[in-house]
């Protein structure tokens, strides 16, 4: 297997693994946060606006990990420096 094949195969694998593993944790966390917020809102409906705002902030915090994974995936898929380097070396 030459270098360009290896880089291509590994990039695709890495991109898939990156978004898959990076998505699991935030998904569990967001589900947990939403479930607890719903429970809190059912118990004290007067505080629902306060809870919703805090929930938004917390969800954004939790979600940012998934966004990092997504950005890295996009980097690997479309702006891959190693792939560009390999193509450049192969064309020489």
């Amino acid at each position, binding site marked *: 297997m030459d270098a360009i094949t290896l880089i291509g195969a590994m990039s695709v694998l890495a991109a898939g693994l990156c978004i898959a593993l990076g998505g699991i944790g935030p998904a569990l966390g967001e589900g947990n946060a939403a479930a607890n917020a719903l429970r809190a809102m059912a118990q004290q409906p007067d505080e629902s606006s306060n809870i919703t705002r805090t929930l938004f902030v917390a969800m954004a915090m939790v979600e940012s990990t998934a966004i990092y994974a997504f*950005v890295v995936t996009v980097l690997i898929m479309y702006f891959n420096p190693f792939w560009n380097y390999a193509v450049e070396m192969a064309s020489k």
Partner: protein
Amino acid sequence: MNTILFQIFGYDVSVEILFSIMIVAAFCIGSLFWIRNTIGRIFVLFLILSAWFSSITTGGENTSGLNLQNVDTMPILTLGPITIGGTVFYSWLVMAVLTILAWMATRNLRSTLKVSGLQTAMEAVVRTIRSQIIDVSGDNPTHYIPIMGTFFLFIGMSNLMTIIPWFRAPTASLSTTAAFSLCVFCAMPIYGIRNAGLKGYLKKYIEPTPIMLPLNILSDFSSTFSLAFRLYGNMLSGAIIASVLMMLAPFLVPLPMQILGLITGTIQAYIFALLAIVYVSSVGPQKPFTDQLNFY
């Protein structure tokens, strides 16, 4: 599905584009019957049609591959030696829309019973931002509203304007979001020192114990990074989903995602402004703010 039925003006009309035009037309006609208000009808028609066109144009005209042209380097105008990229141009467009709206709303302000609709809408927006700032920071909102309100309005307007065909949101570029989060990074010490003085602000870094000093310094940087990347990633994922769906099932399936993008765009603008307020007011004022004007 790609069977070409007939040609019109040199364009091939296939089965799927015919179907999608029929379904969008059915949506439009149905909404005309459903809504009994002239402005509402025009608004819903505009929403459906422009969302449809914009989902097609952001996905790219070629349905063969992903069209992920970088907005930063997309040349729009060339003024002599200076080439103006997409991000700057579309930012100017959003700024122009916001400025014209604000100018029209504040042109003749009235406090009588007869106020214009635009003034009422703008007052509602400003009032909501004010009350949110009071709730989150517990501080006088007058100091925060120029920067935080601008973040919310600019990001929200640029995300909402993606409904216009050929408009690419400037927030889908890392340079714009990094500039915004750098503004927040610079605003953190300024507001902290204003609220608690230099000594009180520096005390934030050695709380709860001086061992946490490196982590506290690091958290300032990481919050700045996360602000920038969150907005960028969310907006970019919208564009990528549109182009992937455009490649898989063109002309109709991207439409609901485009309308969903309006909701997520507004939520992202809200979250950016809210987190900026949280970070900036982390070193809070000495005594809690009581709204004596009872403005909201």
